[in-house]
């Protein structure tokens, strides 16, 4: 787990805009597969929304 976090930490440091604390919080969150599906569906919709009129 620590090795995994270190790798991700390095990756996130490379992209300064990505929040490490948010990512680590995701790893600790008590999420199940239904939460993953919901988040993945939201991600799938991203970028396809109609521009506000």
């Amino acid at each position, binding site marked *: 787990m620590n090795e*995994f976090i270190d*790798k*991700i930490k390095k*990756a*996130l440091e*490379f*992209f300064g*805009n*990505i929040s490490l604390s*948010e*990512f680590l919080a*995701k*790893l*600790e*969150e008590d*999420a*199940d*597969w*239904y*939460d*993953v*599906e919901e*988040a*993945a*569906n939201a*991600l*799938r919709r*991203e*970028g*396809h929304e109609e521009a506000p009129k």
Partner: protein
Amino acid sequence: MKAKLSILLICSLFCLACPKQNIDTAKAQSAKLARYAGAGVYLTGELFRNKVLTLGQKDKIADGFIFLAKAGQTFDAAIAELEKKYDGKTVPKAELKDLFAVFNAEVVAKFLDLLRTLKVSVHPDLADVIEAIRTAVLIVAGLFGKKLEVRQQIEAI
């Protein structure tokens, strides 16, 4: 090396002797896998928002995570059914074999699909998340004594 092998052998024998622990461990590993997948979804979103991934790449990866999530739900449902059926009693080996069949047909197959998607669009940093999910998949496969079989399937991608 010998000591590591001995520990592994003892652990394997212990797991075989305690099917209930197999169920509990499979449940815990499935939850861990879900957390890693959730982190993968988050990271994919961030890479897309930072213009590292294109819209098309993000969509493909998101689709992969949706399929993986559905597969995880099926696996969790199979575990819950076994738990209800045996209520703390020893689960017969044949039932564990069926549970692995669900794991293989659902989680492993969907994970392999996700890997195929990533092969064309993966960013090296997202690969670390996938590596973590891969490890979790192999741990669950190991519980059923099928680690090698699953590893070969993954490496064949």
